[in-house]
């Protein structure tokens, strides 16, 4: 300790036995024993035995309203303790509220002498963990903002009334008491404003995962409530984010591969004369150097003067070292003529044949080619001969493959986006504000909200 803190030089307080955690009272109406859990803070008690409302603000307990009703059975009995977000809490009060009898929900008041008060709020479809704010939020352009996060209006100009209470409270709770409410949301959180003629208070509540509330207080919550809760985050948002990242990478890689593999180097180019005389001929082209571990070899054959004939092409790509052979077949054909509709032509004078996954090595390409002429009165005469050009390249993925892959990659994304949109629309349809943003843009004319 420094000299400046001399005034604080004091012995630690004498070790005292722990203070009791409860103060026992007896209900002036039914005589039942009430164990006050938040002595010193609690102002009003609603007796758990007879429901009478008691004033415990002063040492002598006063009966405010006498009731003789059995206490409601609670999902979380008062006195239950549970650990939420690393702090142990005891349920000490219960309030049932509604919008003038409609849309009922309940609120449990939680207490820990070292951490103060919190709220557990549920409408039966999900649980939220609320804390009263000690300051008002800032105001953004469309709603309040807290700690840099903005909130969208969801329920506006509500009127909440108290329908039933049991337990202890730090204010004068009364059945029938009303407050003006507004609720604002962002995924996972709700920011609520309550105002009466005396004060305005703000509460931030976090949506609890069903497992969290179940572990803490042993109550079950629906896994996927529908329609979604106002502050329920879309389950598709995360998937879409990851999916979009993967898709972007995949498309990038594919694009790069296509670029690299298309228009690969020519490994061999040559030509032979061909007659359309149905005679099989052989030509060996080589050497063809395949330098990559594996490659797609493309063989292009093209007969520029072919007319009314076809050339059968049998390829054998033979490894010079191992004599291993890769075989393929192609045909170049071209027909033309004239009929009542005029001149016509069909077929292609060229043929591209691909051999996939050819391993590294030096190869010869053996081409067996047979020229055939077509004789039919309806056709013109066939050409007598042509040059057959042959070009061997280390070739590329079919561009159509790229398109198919793109669709395959994007389909699930579009699907998730669609599910996300439907989720957001269902969520926002519960709001007083209605659909906003994307959910509104993609609202069909046939499904306009009521």
């Amino acid at each position, binding site marked *: 300790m*420094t000299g*400046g*803190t*001399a*005034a*604080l*030089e*004091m012995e*630690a*307080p004498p070790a*005292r*036995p*722990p*203070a*009791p*955690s409860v*103060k026992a009272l007896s209900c002036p109406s039914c005589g039942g024993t009430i164990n006050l*859990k*938040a*002595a*010193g*803070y609690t*102002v009003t008690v609603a007796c758990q035995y007879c429901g009478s409302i008691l004033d415990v*603000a*002063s*040492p002598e307990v006063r009966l405010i309203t006498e009731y003789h009703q059995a206490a409601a059975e609670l999902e979380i009995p008062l006195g239950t303790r549970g650990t939420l977000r690393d702090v*142990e809490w005891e349920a000490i009060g219960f309030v049932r509220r509604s919008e003038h009898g409609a849309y009922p929900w309940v609120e449990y008041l939680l*207490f*820990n*002498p*070292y*951490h*103060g*008060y919190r709220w557990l709020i549920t409408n039966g479809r999900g649980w939220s963990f609320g804390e*009263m704010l*000690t*300051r*008002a939020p*800032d105001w953004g352009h469309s709603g309040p903002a807290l700690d840099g996060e903005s909130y969208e209006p969801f329920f506006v100009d509500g009127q909440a009334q108290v329908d039933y209470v049991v337990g202890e409270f*730090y*204010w*004068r709770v009364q059945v029938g008491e009303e407050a003006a409410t507004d609720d604002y949301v962002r995924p996972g959180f709700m920011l609520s404003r309550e105002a009466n003629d*005396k*004060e305005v208070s703000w509460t931030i509540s976090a949506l609890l995962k069903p497992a969290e509330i179940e572990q803490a207080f042993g109550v079950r919550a629906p896994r996927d409530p529908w329609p979604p809760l106002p502050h329920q985050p879309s389950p598709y948002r995360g998937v879409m984010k990851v999916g979009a990242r993967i898709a972007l990478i995949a498309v990038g890689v594919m694009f790069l591969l296509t670029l690299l593999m298309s228009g690969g180097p020519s490994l061999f180019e040559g030509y032979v004369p061909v007659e359309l005389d149905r005679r099989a001929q052989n030509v060996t082209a080589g050497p063809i150097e395949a330098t990559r571990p594996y490659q797609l070899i493309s063989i292009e054959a093209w007969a520029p003067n072919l007319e009314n004939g076809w050339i059968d092409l049998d390829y054998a790509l033979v490894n010079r070292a191992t004599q291993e052979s890769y075989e393929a077949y192609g045909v170049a054909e071209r027909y033309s003529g004239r009929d009542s509709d005029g001149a016509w032509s069909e077929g292609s004078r060229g043929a591209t044949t691909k051999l996939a996954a050819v391993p590294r090595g030096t190869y010869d390409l053996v081409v067996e080619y047979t020229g055939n002429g077509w004789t039919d009165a309806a056709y013109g005469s066939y050409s007598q001969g042509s040059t057959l050009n042959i070009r061997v390249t280390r070739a590329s993925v079919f561009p159509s493959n790229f398109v198919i892959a793109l669709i395959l990659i994007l389909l699930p994304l579009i699907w998730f986006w669609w599910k996300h949109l439907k989720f957001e629309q269902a969520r926002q349809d519960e709001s007083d504000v209605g659909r906003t943003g994307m959910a509104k843009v993609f609202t069909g004319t046939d499904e306009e909200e009521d």
Partner: protein
Amino acid sequence: MQKVSCPNCGAEVTFRSPALPSRICDYCHTILVRSGGGIEQVGKAAVLPFDVSPIQIGTAGTFDGRDFTVVGRVRWGWTDGSWNEWLVLFGDGSDGWLGEAMGQFMLTKERPLGDVQSDPTIRAIILGERVPIGTEAQVDGETFIVSDAREATCLAAEGELPFTAITGTTIYSIDFRSTTGALASLQREKTLSSFYQGRYVTLAELRPRHLRAIDGWPMPAYGT
């Protein structure tokens, strides 16, 4: 530090700060006031009603980097409840109040009225007027809004205090809030007013040591 015997019961009582003239005997609850060289008895304080506050006399902590110790408390009551004001003594001999209400904590320090009475709302309160909730006041260019105004009665007190807290004394107490979480209060007893300004704090940020042990509740390890 000054140690004397209680003129009423003989128990040892300690005055830690020369700035705090009032002391309530821990044993017989006699209110003692230092005047000149002597000790004067000015009445008896009521026994504090039981509460489950985590604070006690001797709780130490840090506020804005300055160490403090809790040396006294006044418990105030009003029609709809009661709250604690714990007197904290800082290392430099100055003091402040750790208010405790509705499970929330506020730390305020007294400011001279001369700093704030240029504001018409504050001046009106000092002069004996009552103001409605929602009335605005300007302090150092910041807007404060009256959030609560009530008659409060001293229910009981303990330890060392800057004034003599006579049980049953009634004050007019006005709470102000700013939108940034700053707060202030003005307390008027008859014609004497005091102005306090500060902010909400969490127990965790005060890193408190020597918190009060409460049966069945695990004590958080803040001060370690």
